[in-house]
């Protein structure tokens, strides 16, 4: 029988970026906030100091900071007719666990979605006519203009390094001319660029494109954030994504919020405490709290006035399913909403090999890059192209970590003396361009519960059914050649572009940008949460994270996830606390 804990005002399920932001905002409003995190405490000097952090085997290949699949994983298949099997070792994406979540081991690429991304259905239909019948894209229910102050807030919290291209409608040289308006400049100047970015920039300009510095949560200089927390200049060590920063140079919950939070009398964190389900009132209109279990096997009931799911997209969606909140999506009937519109990211790349020059890509940082946004979102005319959305083309120099990176020209054998010689020649003379594409929702890509495989508590794993779509293929086939053209103008010896696989493959790492499953929207008929990220079913339940994206844009998601969290926190503070109940009438 579960032990009943004293009630709190707010319980947060998960303590990464969205949990830390919510905790900060709601403790400021005077609420008593408890965060439950299934992983352990983590801090810079103990868990990833500079003397330990650059360890490729430990942190990436042995998954030191990722969720263990033994505890929770997903089953996966490409299409409904196949049998889904458990992801036994992570490949394509890497869910985090522990205090700070994946915010500890992200790269720090911090883009805002475009204004048109938030109105993807209405905007595209107005300009190009009806979308295909099985494309289940929809508007977010919140606009860019409404989110702008919240983007600005997160960027200042993190000390994002970049250059604005549009301040209050005035375009500025050197920034992104296609971005939505900004109320202010970035808090820090752009990162220092290296050889590869200089070549990319010149090549892109030569083609009439508009390169700009990638917005970066790695510090271009020392910075003190609005909460008084200091961050140090980035040392370009090349261990960002998949690693913690030992240098306090990457924005994370640990470096930007948690030190302030851990001093507050109205904040409590319980680690190694995994929520099993959200509890509902007898009449099914409210959440009464959560039930969780610790690593000693003890079960607890935690009553709370407000429950906020702050886990990763996959965890939040599964928790909704396991708690019986809303109906699980059924692609056959199109009914049910939890698990609907699962999307990902459509990625290709172009390798550039130099002969004379060295790229020395071990001098890198997670968000050190030049970007071209001319073919993202609706920044270009899609008439007759047969797809919507787009991609940024970027030349990031994130690392040259030798277990992971083996740049060799096409046609080189996979092992043996010839491979070794090719790797020796090319390792420091290679760079790559990434094509970071949007992923539009389709009826056949979704999440539900697996009928066969169970987790350590005997509960069903979540099942992912996903494959690349026609929109993905056309998008990729249109934009990858543009990246290839830029690459050819960078002065290298050889260029090689990848293409989208025939089927999405769970094995090679692609990106940890999983979205959808608890989507937001304008009515309870099309969404799990309303424009304030409030559950349509239980008015005191809120769901954070990229699960609320109805479809994914051609950008990294963190800035938009954080802006939506601030937006939701403000609605809770200004509206919900005064009159608890649905903030949007169905």
């Amino acid at each position, binding site marked *: 029988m579960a032990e009943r804990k004293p009630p709190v005002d707010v319980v947060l399920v998960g303590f990464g970026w969205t949990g830390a932001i919510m905790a900060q905002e709601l403790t400021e409003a005077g609420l008593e906030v408890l965060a439950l995190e299934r992983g*352990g405490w983590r*801090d*810079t*000097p103990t*868990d990833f*100091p500079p*003397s*330990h952090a*650059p*360890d490729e*085997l430990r942190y990436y*290949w*042995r998954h030191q900071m990722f969720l*263990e*699949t*033994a505890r929770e994983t997903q089953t*996966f298949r*490409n299409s409904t007719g196949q049998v889904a*099997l458990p*992801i*036994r070792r992570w490949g394509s994406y890497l869910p985090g666990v522990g205090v700070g979540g994946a915010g500890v081991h992200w790269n720090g690429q911090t883009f805002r979605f475009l204004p048109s991304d938030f109105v993807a259905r209405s905007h595209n239909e107005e300009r190009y006519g009806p979308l295909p019948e099985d494309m289940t894209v929809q508007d977010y229910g919140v606009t860019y203009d409404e989110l702008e102050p919240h983007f600005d807030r997160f960027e200042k919290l993190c000390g994002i390094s970049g250059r604005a291209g549009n301040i209050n409608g005035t375009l500025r040289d050197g920034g992104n001319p296609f971005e939505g308006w900004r109320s202010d400049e970035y808090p820090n100047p752009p990162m*220092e660029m*290296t*050889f590869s970015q*200089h070549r990319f920039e010149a090549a892109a300009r030569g083609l009439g494109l508009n390169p700009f510095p990638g917005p970066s949560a790695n510090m271009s200089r020392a910075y003190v954030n609005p909460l008084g927390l200091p961050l140090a*200049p980035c*040392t*370009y*060590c090349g261990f960002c994504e998949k690693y913690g920063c*030992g240098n306090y140079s990457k924005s994370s919950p640990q470096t930007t919020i*948690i*030190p302030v939070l851990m001093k507050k*009398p109205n904040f409590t*964190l*319980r*680690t190694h405490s995994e929520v099993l389900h959200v509890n509902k009132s007898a009449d099914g209109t409210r959440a009464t709290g959560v039930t969780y279990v610790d*690593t*000693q096997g*003890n079960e607890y009931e935690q009553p709370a006035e407000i429950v906020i799911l702050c886990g990763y997209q996959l965890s939040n969606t599964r928790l909704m399913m396991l708690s019986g909140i809303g109906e699980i999506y059924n692609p056959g009937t199109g009914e049910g909403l939890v698990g609907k519109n699962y999307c990902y990211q459509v990625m290709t790349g172009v390798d550039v090999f130099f002969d004379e*020059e*060295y790229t*020395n890509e*071990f*001098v890198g940082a997670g968000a050190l890059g030049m970007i071209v946004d001319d073919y993202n979102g609706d920044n270009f005319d899609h008439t007759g192209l047969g797809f919507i959305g787009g991609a940024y083309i970027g030349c990031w120099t994130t690392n*040259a*970590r*030798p*277990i992971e990176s*083996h740049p060799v020209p096409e046609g080189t054998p*996979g*092992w043996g*003396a010839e491979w*070794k010689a090719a*790797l*020796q020649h090319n390792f*420091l003379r290679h760079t790559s361009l990434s094509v970071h594409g949007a992923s539009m929702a389709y009826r056949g890509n979704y999440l539900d519960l697996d009928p066969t*495989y*169970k987790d350590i508590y005997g509960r069903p794993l979540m099942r992912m059914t996903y494959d690349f779509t026609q929109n993905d293929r056309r998008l990729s086939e249109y934009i990858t050649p543009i990246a290839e053209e830029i690459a050819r103008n960078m002065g290298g010896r050889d260029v090689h572009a990848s293409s989208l696989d025939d089927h999405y493959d*769970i*094995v090679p790492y692609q990106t940890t940008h999983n979205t959808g499953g608890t989507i937001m929207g304008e009515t309870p008929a099309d969404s799990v949460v309303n424009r304030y990220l409030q559950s349509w079913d239980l008015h005191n339940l809120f769901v954070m994270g990229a699960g609320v994206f109805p479809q994914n844009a051609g950008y990294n998601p963190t800035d938009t996830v954080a802006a939506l969290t601030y937006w939701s926190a403000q609605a809770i503070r200004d509206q919900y606390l005064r009159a608890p109940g649905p903030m949007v009438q169905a």
Partner: protein
Amino acid sequence: MNRRELLVRGLMAGTAIVMPTGLLARELSQTGMLRAPGAADPPYFGTETEGFLTAAERRALDAITARLIPGDADSPGAREAGVVTFIDRQLAGFYGRAQHWYMQGPFPEALETQGYQYDRTPAQLIRTGLEALGAHTRTTYQGADFADLTPEQQDEILHALEEGEILFPGMSSKGFFEFVHEMTIEGFFCDPVYGGNQGMVGWQLVGFPGARYDYRDFIHHNGARIDLPPVGLMGRPGWSAG
């Protein structure tokens, strides 16, 4: 002590053997950042006194890895880097046991896109694969082990494994090849603390400077080669941490 406290203590007594105290649930409030400098966990690099591999398995793996990354007079390969020692330690530890992986069945036939679907841990996969490989070479080459064959014969077999053309009973020969290849790469390029990449020969081959942590002086290299001697987590010869 009430009955419940007794029960919890009993549970903890059982788990304490397998669970470091760092994995116990904690409640933190007004603690500050709980920094514990110097208390960082060292990397796990194999604590077993005995390795996993038998002498015969070591010999076969040594021969395989020496073909995957061959060494010559000017340029050390997997053998010189100690890759087999690396693999042995890894298989003896949590990784070899798939301790962190979801290993519950069933294990039906899988799609390529579904990844690792073997009903064996990495240690079992390598052991069973080496056994099948030995049976294959002894049958095909008059009782010879893989390590007894010429480099050309070895390469031929490795290509056939890679293509899945040699059938192993009850397992995928291609899967075996891919796993050995992956661990060979890891052992050649990992930090030397793990037993592979001895003398940092893998890093020297490609020009990777290792576990350095500050390249600010080198950002504006403008295409010129940066040539720095590699440094491991424990320093480097002549400039060692201990």
